[in-house]
C-alpha cells in the first residue's frame, strides 16, 4: 500500500523565515497520526501544505499519491478541519449540512444527520451560537460526512474544555473505526493525542525530530541511569536523544534497536510524554545533528 502522506525535503518559507524545513516523512495508510510540537513549530504549515492551502517553497509533498493541487477529485478524498474549527456564524447547523451536501459528491447525508442528532445539535441553531465543542463537532461532521480517505485536523481540541475534548476524540475514534480513515491530527500537547494516535511525528523548530509507530518508538527508546560517563563512549548504535549529568551520575535517553547489555546501566522504559518532551527539550545544536555531531552522523 502506498503512503497516504509523503514529504520529501519539504520546506516552506514566509519571507525570510523557514516555517518548515527539510521535512521527510512517510505515513502509512490506516493510521491515526499525532503531529506534536510546540506552538509555532510548523504543524499548521505542514497541514496547510498537505491540503494545498499553501504551496511548498522547497521539496515536495504527496497526498494519497498525488500533489495537493486542489483538484476536485482529490478534494473529495481529503478532509480538513482547520484551526479553531471555522464555521459560518450566520448559517444554521442544517445549512451547514446542506452546504456539505451541495459541495461534496460523496456526501453521506444519513451519516451527517445521524451525527447531528446524536450530538444533540439543534439543526435550526446558528453556528455562531454554538459552544466551542459543538462547533468543533459540526466542523468534524462536515469533514467526516464527505467520506474522505484522509482526514487532517489542525489543533482540533486546543480550544476545547476537557470534557468536550474527550467527547470530540471519542467521536473521532468512532468514525475511524467505522470508516477506516487515515487521520493526521496536530496538537501541542502529547496527552491530547496519546491514546488516539498510533503514529507520532514530533515537530520542533520547523523540523521533524522523530517520526514513527508509537509502540516502536516506545520499544526503542530507553532511559539509562548509571555512573557518570562521556556520551562519546556509548556504543555507536545508541543514539543519544538527551543527557544530563551530576558529578557522579549520568542519565541518558537513547534510541537503539539493539538490546542494552552494559550491566552498569539501570534501564527503564519511557512514557510517550517523556519521550516527546526529551525531543522537544533538546537544544538547537542537538536538533541539527548534521551540523554539531558529525561523528555520530558518520557512525549511523
Amino acid at each position, binding site marked *: 500500500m502506498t503512503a497516504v502522506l509523503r514529504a520529501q525535503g519539504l520546506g516552506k518559507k514566509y519571507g525570510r523565515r523557514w516555517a518548515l524545513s527539510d521535512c521527510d516523512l512517510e505515513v502509512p495508510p490506516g493510521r491515526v497520526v499525532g503531529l506534536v510540537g510546540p506552538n509555532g513549530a510548523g504543524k499548521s504549515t505542514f497541514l496547510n501544505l498537505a491540503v494545498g492551502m499553501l*504551496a511548498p517553497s522547497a521539496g515536495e509533498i504527496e497526498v494519497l499519491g498525488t500533489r495537493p493541487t486542489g483538484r476536485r477529485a482529490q478534494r473529495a478524498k481529503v478532509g480538513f478541519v*482547520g484551526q479553531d474549527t471555522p464555521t459560518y456564524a450566520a448559517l444554521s447547523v442544517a445549512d451547514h449540512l446542506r*452546504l456539505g451536501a451541495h*459541495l461534496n459528491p460523496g456526501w453521506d447525508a444519513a451519516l451527517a444527520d445521524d451525527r447531528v442528532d446524536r450530538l444533540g445539535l439543534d439543526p435550526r441553531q446558528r453556528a455562531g451560537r454554538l459552544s466551542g465543542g459543538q462547533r468543533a463537532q459540526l466542523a468534524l461532521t462536515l*469533514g467526516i460526512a464527505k467520506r474522505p480517505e484522509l482526514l487532517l485536523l489542525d489543533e482540533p481540541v486546543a480550544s476545547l474544555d476537557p470534557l468536550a475534548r474527550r467527547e470530540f476524540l471519542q467521536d473521532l475514534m468512532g468514525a475511524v473505526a467505522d470508516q477506516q480513515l487515515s487521520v493526521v491530527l496536530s496538537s501541542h500537547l502529547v496527552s491530547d493525542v496519546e491514546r488516539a494516535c498510533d503514529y507520532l511525528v514530533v515537530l520542533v523548530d520547523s523540523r521533524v525530530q522523530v517520526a514513527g509507530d508509537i509502540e516502536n518508538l516506545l520499544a526503542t527508546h530507553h532511559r539509562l541511569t548509571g555512573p557518570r560517563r562521556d556520551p562519546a563512549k556509548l556504543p555507536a548504535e545508541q543514539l543519544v536523544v538527551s543527557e544530563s549529568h551530576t558529578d557522579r551520575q549520568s542519565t541518558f535517553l537513547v534510541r537503539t534497536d539493539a538490546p542494552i547489555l552494559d550491566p552498569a546501566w539501570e534501564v527503564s522504559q519511557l512514557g510517550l510524554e517523556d519521550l516527546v518532551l526529551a525531543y522537544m527539550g533538546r537544544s538547537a545544536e542537538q536538533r541539527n545533528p548534521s551540523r554539531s555531531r558529525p561523528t555520530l552522523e558518520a557512525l549511523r
Partner: protein
Amino acid sequence: MIWLTWRQLRGSAAVVLGALALAVLALAVTGPQLADILRVSGTDFFDRLGTDGTKKAVFYLGTAAAYAVPAVVGAFWGAPLVAREVEAGTHRLVWNQSITRTRWLATKLGLAGLGAVVAGSIGLVVTWWCHPLDEAVGRGYTDNGPFSVPRLWPELFGSRGIVPIGMTVLALAVGVTVGLLVRRTVAAMAVTLAVVVAVQIATPVLVQSHLLAPERLTTTITATNLRGIQMAGEPGAADPRIGRVEVAVDQPGAWVTQNRTVDPDGKVVEFLPAWAEDCAPAPGTSPDTAVACFTRLAEEGYRQQVEYLPASRFWALQWMETGVLLGLALGLVGFCFWRIRRDLT
C-alpha cells in the same frame, strides 16, 4: 455552490436591490408625466418644469442613485465577498469541500456580477426617465437649470445609459480584489469606497475625453456666436487683457471639449492683443465698437477652434466607456483568480 453564495449574499443583495426598486418605482411613476409635459409645451418646456419640485427631486434621486450604486455594490458586495471568509477562516472550511477554489470564486463572482448588472441597470431607467429632457435639449430648448444639461456632459454621462453597469461591475471587481489583498472586511470596504469614488471622479478626465475623435470646427469670432470672454488680471486694472474667448456652436446637446483662439500661424493664443479689449461688451460702449473689433480680429487672422462631440455620439461613447470599464474589471478578476490559487491560510 450557487445555493451557498446566494445564502451568503441575499441579505446585502436585498437591501441594495430593495432601495433601487424604490428609486425605480419613483422614476416609473413620474416618467410618463415628463413626456406629457413635453408634448404640450414648446420652448417653454424647461420653464414649466423648473417649478416642479417633485420632478427635480426625482431627477436628483435617479442621478444620485446611478452614481451611488457602484460604490455601494463595491463596498457591500465586493469587499466582503472574499475578505469576510478569510477573516472568519471559513475559506478553510469551504475550500476543503470537494470544490476547487477557481469554481468557488467563479460562482461567487458570477452571482454577484449578475447582481451588479441588475443594480447598474438603474442607469437605463434614468435614461428612459430623462428621455423627454434629452429630446428637448436636442431641439435646442434650454434654461440655466439642471434639467437642460446635455447628457453627454461629464456631470451626467456616468449616470446614464450602460456606463453605470460597467462602473458597478468594475466596482465589484475592485471590492473583491481589495478584499483579497487587505483580508479584513471593514478595512476593505473603506478602501473600496475610496477607490471607487476616485475612479468615478477620474473617469471623465482620463477616459471619457479620449475615446472618440471629436468634430473640429474653425470659425471667426463674431458678436453673435460669442458666448463668453474671460479677462485676465483684476477687473478695472490698468491693463486688463482678454485671456479666453468661447464661442457657441450650433450643436444642441453637444459636449464641447476644446474652445480656443489661434493666431494666423495656427498657434494657440494666450492673450489677445490689447486692442481686443473693445470686443468685450462693456456698459456705455456702442455695439459698433465691438463689431469693429471682431472684424479686426477676423481680418488679422484670429480664428476660434472648437472641438466637440455631437449629441448623436452619445451611445457610441457609452459603449466604448463601458467597454473600457469592463476591460479593467476583467483584468482585476483575472488577478483575483491568479491570487486565489496562491497561498492563503
